[in-house]
């Protein structure tokens, strides 16, 4: 089980801010594929991977990062701070 959190329009498209996901994926990219296969709302959220950023346990990573040991994965659009 891994905690998955969503922010901004990724959260809106998925339709919830947080969920626990049972996964056999070994990488972030694998987890995204599992989610996309579930329901259309995930396909919508992950339709443009160039607009998706990922954090594993609150640290920015690439989508090919391994999930091993991570407790929380976050998906969100490019940040717009400042």
């Amino acid at each position, binding site marked *: 089980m891994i905690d998955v959190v969503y*922010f901004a329009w990724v959260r809106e498209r998925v339709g919830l801010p947080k969920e626990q996901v049972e996964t056999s994926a070994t990488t972030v990219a694998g987890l995204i594929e599992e989610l996309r296969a579930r329901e259309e709302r995930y396909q919508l959220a992950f339709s443009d991977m160039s607009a998706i950023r990922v*954090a594993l346990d*609150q640290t920015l990573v690439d989508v090919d990062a391994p999930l091993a040991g991570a407790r929380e994965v976050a998906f969100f*659009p490019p*940040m*717009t*701070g*400042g």
Partner: protein
Amino acid sequence: MSVRVQAEDFDMAHELAGFGGSSAGAIVTFTGIVRDTKAADLQAMEIEHYPAMTQSALEAIEADARRRWSLDDCLIVHRFGRLRPAERIMMVATASAHRADAFAAAEFLMDYLKSRAPFWKKEITRDGEVWVESKAADETALERW
């Protein structure tokens, strides 16, 4: 040296009282304001953030600035929640012996805050709600550091 993430407004004069101590010869500040970009129809700006990550991400950016320049003091304040046009969104302040380091560090902090701090802005207008998109220029701005 401090980093704060808060819903409340902040007072510049209060934030800068005693900032930099007695060794700083230069203090640079930057303040970001909610700007109505489309013919005065902006009602509010909603700023979302990732509470579990925001503080540590800002602290990491601040620590990076302190490694690169000789700073006597450094401050980042960033708000979240619903803000109205002309409200303050955030500020950075840097203090150094000379202005070059203070200016450079403040620009560095702003460049990194733009695209590496987990905040997302949504504009609420009469016509609806639109997420602010990041700009390619924000990403290329990091390459100079």
